[in-house]
């Protein structure tokens, strides 16, 4: 009986421990790529199951918290799953699973032999840790786990572009870590505690509230770099187009969203969001993030570079949700995150598939895909149009909610920008569509595929197309069946805005 209880308690830490356990197992089998593939797949499957159970638990019985080592909060480290966390963990698992599949189909064996799969699991471990922890310093640790795995995944293979991209990625992210660490230190110096719930409780008693604002700004900058908001995003376009598509895809889907998650978490649970200063920063940043991102995309002629800049642009929408800070806006931001992760990952997968097919990411060199692979074209249109906010796909509802929230709060300018950016996004997506799918292949109008594609087994091809189908299907489901998704987003927004439940659950009050 006790064991069962323990396992139910254990469930919320499993998204962190499972990937680690499987990574270690893979390290023991590091000579056998096949075993690693299987273990990796198994790990992601288990993680998905766990995350679903966590979600059901949280949805049924409220916020769950685990005091690691039995040291009561705020003295030990708390692992906490509220709705937002559990949603994020589920999406992480979905993306993990699809990336695992896509990797089997697309990653070259040399990378696999150099421990690609354990790295993937380490990355997921860090991401899940960041979503689940209730401790500020522990968040820093998970950020670092996530970062270092992403550093390695980014540079794995050692091609020139990878290395050049990685240098910027690494340096700027380390800079953000340094700011993060400083902020953690200052916050401890002010509040004398690291537990998010406890900090939230103690902040009102700090003598100098203006100093709290200083820390809040520093956290915002640190997370802003990770989230790639304006003007802190430079590392992203410099690097995201350099690694293999599977890596780009999981980065594109998950990494920046951890930054967004942290911003949401800090400005709902930890800090009390009552400063016009912070709001102004967020609003201006949201607008400029949307704009500069989409304009950056408009300037590009490379499939993945366009997609990379669009990540930034889309992050702007999520930040807009946080900046507006009404329940609807936060719900919109959460809905946006869910939608965007699914869609963006898929677009990167598709870019990878096209690359395998045609041997290039450059729009000028590509063409003729739709003619011979209409299914792939259709599969591209689903996420692409969703990203552009075409109804009734998921992206439309995401934008709709935010625009509605913005108009409710009479933030007309930023709503106007959001709408304009939506149009420009559509422009970019049609540009890809025109150049890659519609246009004839500039080299040859016959069905010419790259040598690598010809050499792929049908199993590998299937492994590449399957995750694309899965994610496209999810996009459609979210679009056509948006009500439950929106309701959950709404509920998590409510939970975030009333942090007393969180605090009580973590600190064991009441």
């Amino acid at each position, binding site marked *: 009986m006790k064991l069962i209880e323990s396992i139910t308690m254990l469930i919320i830490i499993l998204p962190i421990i499972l990937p680690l356990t499987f990574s270690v197992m893979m390290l023991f089998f590091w000579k056998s790529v096949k075993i690693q593939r299987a273990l990796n797949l198994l790990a992601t499957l288990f993680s998905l199951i766990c995350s679903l159970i966590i979600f059901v638990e949280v949805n049924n019985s409220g916020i769950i918290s685990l005091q690691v080592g039995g040291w009561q909060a705020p003295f030990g480290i708390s692992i906490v799953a509220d709705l937002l966390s559990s949603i994020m963990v589920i999406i992480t698992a979905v993306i993990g699973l699809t990336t695992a599949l896509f990797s089997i189909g697309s990653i070259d064996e040399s990378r696999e032999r150099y421990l690609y799969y354990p790295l993937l699991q380490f990355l997921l471990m860090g991401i899940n840790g960041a979503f689940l922890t209730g401790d500020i*310093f522990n968040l820093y640790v998970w950020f670092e786990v996530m970062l270092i795995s992403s550093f390695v995944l980014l540079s794995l293979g050692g*091609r020139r572009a990878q290395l050049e991209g990685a240098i910027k990625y690494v340096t700027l992210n380390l800079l953000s870590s340094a700011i993060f660490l400083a902020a953690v230190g*200052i916050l401890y110096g002010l509040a004398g505690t690291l537990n998010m719930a406890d900090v939230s409780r103690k902040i009102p008693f700090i003598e100098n509230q203006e100093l709290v604002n200083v820390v809040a700004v520093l956290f915002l900058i640190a997370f802003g770099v990770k989230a790639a908001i304006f003007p802190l995003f*430079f590392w992203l376009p410099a690097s995201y187009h350099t690694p293999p598509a599977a890596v780009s895809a999981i980065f594109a889907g998950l990494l920046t969203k951890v930054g967004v998650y942290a911003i949401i978490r800090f400005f709902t649970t930890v800090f009390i969001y009552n400063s016009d200063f912070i709001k102004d920063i967020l609003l201006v940043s949201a607008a400029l993030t949307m704009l500069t991102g989409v304009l950056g995309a408009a300037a590009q002629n490379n499939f993945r570079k366009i997609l990379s800049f669009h990540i930034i642009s889309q992050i702007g929408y999520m930040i807009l949700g946080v900046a507006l800070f009404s329940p609807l806006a936060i719900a919109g931001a959460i809905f946006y995150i869910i939608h965007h992760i699914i869609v963006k990952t898929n677009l990167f997968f598709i870019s990878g598939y096209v690359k395998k097919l045609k041997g290039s990411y450059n729009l000028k060199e590509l063409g003729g895909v739709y003619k011979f692979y209409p299914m792939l074209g259709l599969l591209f249109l689903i996420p692409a149009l969703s990203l552009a906010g075409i109804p009734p796909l998921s992206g439309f509802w995401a934008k709709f909610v935010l625009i509605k929230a913005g108009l409710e709060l009479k933030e007309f300018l930023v709503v106007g920008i959001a709408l304009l950016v939506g149009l420009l996004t559509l422009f970019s997506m049609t540009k890809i569509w025109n150049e890659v799918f519609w246009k004839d292949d500039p080299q040859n109008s016959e069905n010419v595929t790259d040598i690598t594609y010809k050499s792929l087994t049908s199993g590998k091809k299937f492994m590449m197309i399957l995750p694309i189908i899965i994610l496209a299907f999810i996009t459609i489901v979210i679009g056509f069946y948006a009500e439950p998704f929106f309701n959950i987003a709404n509920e998590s927004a409510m939970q975030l805005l009333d942090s007393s439940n969180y605090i009580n659950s973590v600190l064991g009050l009441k």
Partner: protein
Amino acid sequence: MLYLLIIGFIASFSAAFIYKPFKNYFGWIAASFPLFMFLSFISRYQQVANGEIIKEYYEWIPSLGINLTFILDGLSLTFVLIITLIGVVVFLYAGAYMKDYEHTDRFFVYIGIFMTSMLGLVISDNMITLFVFWELTSISSFMLIGFNHHKESSRKSALQALLVTGSGGLALLAGFIFLYLITGSFEISSLYDKHSEIIKSGFYSSAVILILLGAFTKSAQFPFHFWLPNAMEAPTPVSAYLHSATMVKAGIYLIARLNHALGGTELWQGTILIFGTITMLIAAALAIKQTDLKRLLAYSTLSVLGTLTLLIGIGSQLAIKAFFIYLVAHSLYKGTLFLVAGTLDHSTGTRDVHNLGGLKKIMPVTMATALLASSSMMGIIPLIGFIGKETVYSAILEIEYWGIFLIIIAVISNALIVMVTILVGLKPFFGKLTSTPVAPHEAHIKMLFGPAILAILGLLMGIFPNAIIGKLLEQSTISILTEELGIKIKLWHGFNLVLLLSFITLGLGILFYVLRNKFFSTIQNVRMIKILKPSEWYEYLLIFLMWFAKLQTRILQNGYLRNYIIFILITAIGLASLSLIKAITTLNINFIPDITFYEIAILSMMVGATFVVITSDSRLKSIVAIGVVGFTMGIIFIIYSAPDLALTTFAIETLTVILFVLVLYKLPKYLQFSNVIVKLRDVIISAAVGIFMSTVVLYVTSLSMQSDLKTYFAEKSLPEGKGRNIVNVILVDFRAIDTLGEITVLAIAAIGVYALLKLKLDDKGE
């Protein structure tokens, strides 16, 4: 109705699978789909005609007020019937016309989706549901306009149409949300009794402007009209369908649909009236220059769309009546003429009016059809077009003050349309037979049947207007004006001013035709100043957009790592300092300078070593110096009671040195890159960061801190953590999960170093 839509979408997609096996008679199969829709809806005719409003309701996203509510009233049904009826003809026609195209199966998928979306649009009562279908028509028309996507012009036109209608769509969405914010509902039918509330609201004008933007772009009103002629890149059945009867009418439909809620104000009526008038005239005028059959028709369509808009702008009972009749008439004859143009193209290989002539003997059926439709278009009795034009003139004449002015414009525009009609509908068949790229021949029955039906329908409606559309007209007017219409449609009103105007129009039209032929080369040479052409605005806007996008990307994403760092740091320090300044004013602390001897030693070592690192011209020297920095850190940790930290620092420093030594082996000498100004800038930035950090630390440490954690660890470390070294107990017990993460980082770093050094893929690919 929802089920009909679902069936519609499924049927559309199924075309992809059933096209190939039934290729030869696919036109009939395809036509049965809109026919089925037509029959399904016309079965409700009686109900609607009796004034019943049929509604359906399904929950979709109730928490956002978005539901699948469908409404079938006179207005909807009119549009539904036009859409499906012309659909039957176009689908049948396309079966033959598209036979030799590649991927015709895809064509039927798109056009099926398009039709279904169009149906959804006109039966939706919920604004957001309507918007969903609105955007779906944009997307499916994008696919249709760009159907010949191997041609760059096709792709460009498709993009243009999508961007113009898409931008309007976004405005429309915002407009809808404004309406929601005013009324708390997205249901259009719920707006009936909220008219006064709406027009009094502060959001009213925003809502009107945004919604009209949406409608105007979709219905190609000036200055957004340019996408429509360009969209003639599409295969002819597409042009016939989208640009005569369906898509471009969506905007008109929307204006009509929302008239009851938003109308009655100067803003609404005036804007619509003015833009409608301008479009009517300009489009007709622009037609003069055209030589391509389809482009001629397109400009005439634009003019008609302007007229329709103008009519709603007038907003009188008579105007609405005119609107309705003209709408039906136009759909019929324009659909026919587009298809005729397609047939001519198909049979002769050209669409240039100058290359066509004397085909009456070779293509008799086509000629007959064209004649019938042209008569309607020119407003010749007894076709429906005649009634349409008559009513339009009557409605305009009713206007006070501006009526005269408007009627002149209307007559001129219509005369120009007459000219277009002569060019498209008559000229190809009469006169001398010209040589064409393909030897002309009469078209296949499937391509003749449909247009002929439509043309005949136009005749029948002209003769028996009340029997066929009378009831529908009444109900439609109720939908638009929320009041009953007391006027019956009549073909013949006797000799009056309006009839005179009709004759003037015809005469003027013929005059225009003659003049046009006479001065054709002159007309061709008339170049409009580019800046005046909205299509050029679009081009300029795109060019500007690309220029600006590249410029801002080059400025921001410039590739220089240090610029990125500077951006981040200035943002961080700038924003944080703003808060800090406020914090400082509320603080006062006293410094007691109490510096011991070894503190001086440490400080001078730190400063000296830092200085050496910064100024050093050799790598090894910097490494030795940074070793001293680390070493000094260790000493600080010893002085301030942190032996574990000191141990770790020394160990790490040594390992870092070893690493550096292994890595830097054989690297070249430092190069001095930066000039004095750059260095000065960097010194200022770094000094700012340093001063900021020092200040923060000073002020935070000046506050008192009461940490429960410190005492807790001191009390529990030995009894419960079983260790005297509290730091270690924290690391392996209290906060063991931190340490777990930490060793994971190390493991990953090791893998990373190993992989980086061992795995070196060549630079081809990726």
